[in-house]
């Protein structure tokens, strides 16, 4: 077996280049077929009825009138009398019809009676939640330099006294409340599938980030076994952590297809996509932070709360990442989950981290503001306390980011910059961390005697450029151009490969494919060596040939080499188990981001001027798609910093902005200038591949909030920083 490793740094021909994604032309000309685009002859269109009430009990549900609507083939309740509904948009009924219009007309004919129950959705109001009996202890942790003496009976009281003492001895104390509202995943292709049966076997064209893991989720409820299911997904229109499951409505789609003997397409309507198919928990925090005169934080004491849905044991942002990245010598943190009548959370890109960063690194920046010290200096002086051992990486990345932002010449103390009319500008920064180790991945690599190369694995392209990465890894190994490798992903019938979540895909698929390709090359080289009469260990694959290193006379074209395989293709399996130590991949990154904003003090509008992202990511396989991940993450961060939030009506629990036109997101003109820079000393290449999807989406909230605070001299404490929240903060500061 070959020793698995990457080419020596500087010797690779494809790795680290800027390759256009191989499925790019299909995506940009409409040829790419997403699950929503799969049309089966005679297909029915199914649509779902969402509950209009946030908290109620079903008194009656009747789909008989819907079945009589012209064009409707079947109408079915999905809830029973007596069922309790815990969020608006939970699924009540399904109608399958000959076309979209008939399906919608059918939904309108479904008759439901409800018993309304008490509603609570005020996740920002922990006092009200306690009064309503909606809170849950979501854990906590205390770390103090001093130990309680043997004579201490009540440790909690001692901790109170110790923290009060530490705060009292601090040169500066910042006390504040910060927060970030829940957002939704808002996948542009909603969750759903097109299902068809043939000879008792199901093909589910499912919009999923988990091709290999969803077949069994269909099989169980349909009372077949997973081998009778093919999950197929060539393209998925966004997932962001919300598309790991077949989902109940996927099974409903398959069931109707089975019962009617027709293909069925069932995708969520936009409002149900937002109400039902994924959201990111909110987080609000009360914090006291004590620092010395240089801004070095000595003590942190916080209580935070928020909601991740109705419970039964609701949570919020994990207490384990509070404060974020920084871990001062003394800290106490505790968390309270609030049960709200809102849909359960789903993993959202870098779970917990963006909220933790936004509600804690803002408090760190307020230490700088209170002391009148440059924020850059305060962040730098606190680097010795970072929890991931990456202080040196952050320091280097901060220097690069500051240069790209021109931080030093632009900096002014908080609220002390000049104004252009009513517009003031400011700078802010934040830093982040993430694991990003590769997931388990298997592939089947075939090398045909005519030189053709193809690889198969049950992976998916979430937008990462998975196909291109795989193609580059295999082509690099064989010394072939990227176009010579045919990459097959998107079917559960291919070898099992992990779900795309947590920045695990590129590491995982690189591992399995590099291993398979190295093993295959070893076998081919043995045949070439025999033919040429040379030692196989002297052979290298480069530029379409297998040759003795340094001796071009002794070589063979790739196709000639493959012809030595005889009649049968060479098939090699590549495997990687998550967590295995390997020179091909590793985990743990840092990353620093800086934002420059312009804020209009009269209108409250925040505009992005410039955003800088500096990121370490180990060995870069494709510089082009890697950069795109960071651009995209920055823009997604701008979205939750300034625009998007799930807005719930406090009285009814209605999700009032669950349409594209109402759920505000940045448009092309809102993002300003974005600068992306990889931090890549040679040590990064030698770490192997590390995932990139999550880390750069973490810091924008704090960095942009800190920039707004620097511009105004006033903290806008809760994200997103809408014009109203900016004006409210200014008003509060004026009256304080």
């Amino acid at each position, binding site marked *: 077996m070959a020793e698995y490793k990457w080419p020596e740094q500087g010797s690779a021909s494809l790795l680290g280049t800027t390759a*256009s994604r191989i499925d790019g032309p299909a995506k940009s000309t409409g040829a790419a077929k997403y699950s929503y685009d799969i049309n089966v002859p005679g297909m029915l269109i199914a649509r779902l009825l969402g509950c209009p009430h946030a908290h109620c009990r079903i008194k009656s549900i009747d789909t008989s009138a819907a079945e009589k609507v012209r064009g409707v083939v079947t109408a079915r309740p999905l809830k029973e009398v007596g069922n309790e509904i815990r969020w608006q948009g939970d699924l009540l009924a399904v109608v399958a019809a000959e*076309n979209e219009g008939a399906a919608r007309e059918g939904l309108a004919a479904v008759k439901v009676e409800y018993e309304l129950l008490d509603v609570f959705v005020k996740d920002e109001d922990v006092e009200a939640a306690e009064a309503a009996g909606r809170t849950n202890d979501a854990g906590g942790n205390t770390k103090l330099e001093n130990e309680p003496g043997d004579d201490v009976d009540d440790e909690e009281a001692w901790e109170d006294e110790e923290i009060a003492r530490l705060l009292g001895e601090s040169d500066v104390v910042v006390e504040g409340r910060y927060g970030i509202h829940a957002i939704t995943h808002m996948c542009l292709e909603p969750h759903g599938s097109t299902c068809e049966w043939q000879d008792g076997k199901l093909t589910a064209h499912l919009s999923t980030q988990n091709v290999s893991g969803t077949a069994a989720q269909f099989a169980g409820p349909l009372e077949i076994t997973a081998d009778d299911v093919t999950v197929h997904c060539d393209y998925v229109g966004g997932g962001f952590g919300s598309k790991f499951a077949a989902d109940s409505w996927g099974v409903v789609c398959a069931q109707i297809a089975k019962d009617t003997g027709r293909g069925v397409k069932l995708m969520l309507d936009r409002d149900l996509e937002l109400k039902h198919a994924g959201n990111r928990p909110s987080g609000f925090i009360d914090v006291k932070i004590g620092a010395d005169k240089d801004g070095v934080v000595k003590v942190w004491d916080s209580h935070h709360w928020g909601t991740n849905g109705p419970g039964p044991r609701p949570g919020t942002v994990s207490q384990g990442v509070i404060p974020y990245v920084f871990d001062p010598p003394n800290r106490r943190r505790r968390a309270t989950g609030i049960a709200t009548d809102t849909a359960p959370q789903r993993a959202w890109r870098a779970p917990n981290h963006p909220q933790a960063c936004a509600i804690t690194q803002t408090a760190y920046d307020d230490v700088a503001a209170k002391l009148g010290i440059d924020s850059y200096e305060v962040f730098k002086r606190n680097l010795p306390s970072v929890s991931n051992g990456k202080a040196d990486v952050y320091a280097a990345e901060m220097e690069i980011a500051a240069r790209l932002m021109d931080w030093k010449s632009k900096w002014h103390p908080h609220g002390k910059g000049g104004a252009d009319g009513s517009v003031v500008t400011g700078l802010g920064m934040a830093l982040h961390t993430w694991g990003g180790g590769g997931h388990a991945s298997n592939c089947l690599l075939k090398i045909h005697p005519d030189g053709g190369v193809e690889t198969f694995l049950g992976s998916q392209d979430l937008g990462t450029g998975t196909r291109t990465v795989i193609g580059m890894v295999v082509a690099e190994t064989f010394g072939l151009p990227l176009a010579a490798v045919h990459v097959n992903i998107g079917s559960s019938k291919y070898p099992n490969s992990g779900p795309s979540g947590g920045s695990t895909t590129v590491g995982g698929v690189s591992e399995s494919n590099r291993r398979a390709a190295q093993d295959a090359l070893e076998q081919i080289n043995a045949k070439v060596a025999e033919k040429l009469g040379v030692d196989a260990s002297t052979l290298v694959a480069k530029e379409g040939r297998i040759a003795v290193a340094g001796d071009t006379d002794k070589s063979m074209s790739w196709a000639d080499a493959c012809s030595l395989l005889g009649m049968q293709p060479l098939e090699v399996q590549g495997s990687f188990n998550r967590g295995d130590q390997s020179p091909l991949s590793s985990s743990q990154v840092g990353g620093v981001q800086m934002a420059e904003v312009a804020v209009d003090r009269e209108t409250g509008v925040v505009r992005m001027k410039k955003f800088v992202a500096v990121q370490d990511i180990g060995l870069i396989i494709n510089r082009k798609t890697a950069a*795109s991940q960071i651009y995209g993450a920055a823009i997604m961060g701008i979205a939750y910093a300034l625009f998007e939030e799930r807005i719930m009506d406090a009285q009814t629990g209605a999700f009032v902005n669950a349409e594209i036109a109402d759920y505000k997101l940045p448009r092309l*003109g809102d993002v300003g200038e974005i600068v992306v820079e990889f931090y890549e000393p040679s040590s990064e290449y030698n770490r192997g591949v590390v995932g990139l999807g999550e880390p750069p989406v973490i810091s924008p909230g704090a960095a942009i909030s800190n920039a707004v605070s620097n511009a105004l001299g006033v903290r806008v404490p809760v994200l997103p920083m809408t014009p109203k929240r900016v004006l409210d903060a200014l008003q509060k500061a004026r009256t304080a």
Partner: protein
Amino acid sequence: MKDRSLSSRSKSNFNRRDFLKGSGAAAAATALAGAPVAVEAADDTVRVFGPEAVKLTLHVNGAQHAVTVEPRTTLLEVLRYQLDLTGAKPVCGDGSSGASTVIIDDKPVTATSTLALQCEGKKIRTVESLGGERPDAVPAAFVEADAQQCGFCTPGFVVAVRAFLDKNPSATESQIREGLNGNLCRCGTYANVIQAALAVVKGGSRG
């Protein structure tokens, strides 16, 4: 008048005409099930369609296509379900995402907020017309600038950029930033889309 279940009346006899002259979105919103729909024809008459499904001929990507539509059927449904042209995407019902953008008689229009009945006699171009063996400069620039991630918004964006640059072939970066805000991307490809559009301007290709 051919084999359609429609009638023809002069505009003076039809009091909903002014209302229906509004946007496609307004027309779509009024297309109730089982109700007839009036469409203003080129000869200044108003024809009433429905409530039964009727046969129409649509001119899409240079070819005539016979389709069957109800008054409530959107152009997007016809393109996707009857012609299997699935490049235009169903992201919203009112066109606010821009994902269903097509070009009708040289203007960008969202197919999701356009009734199929309104499109007879008009030249419809979808994103698929920009592909093929020699793709248009805009999708090629999207590939080169990597202005796509999941890619679900991309076809609509490509068509919107094509229509914008047809009108503004020398657009500056600030005009691009101001003029292409009708399309929504969740993955965050805007920075790359700007680069793609600028590259097309620089290349001077109208495709």
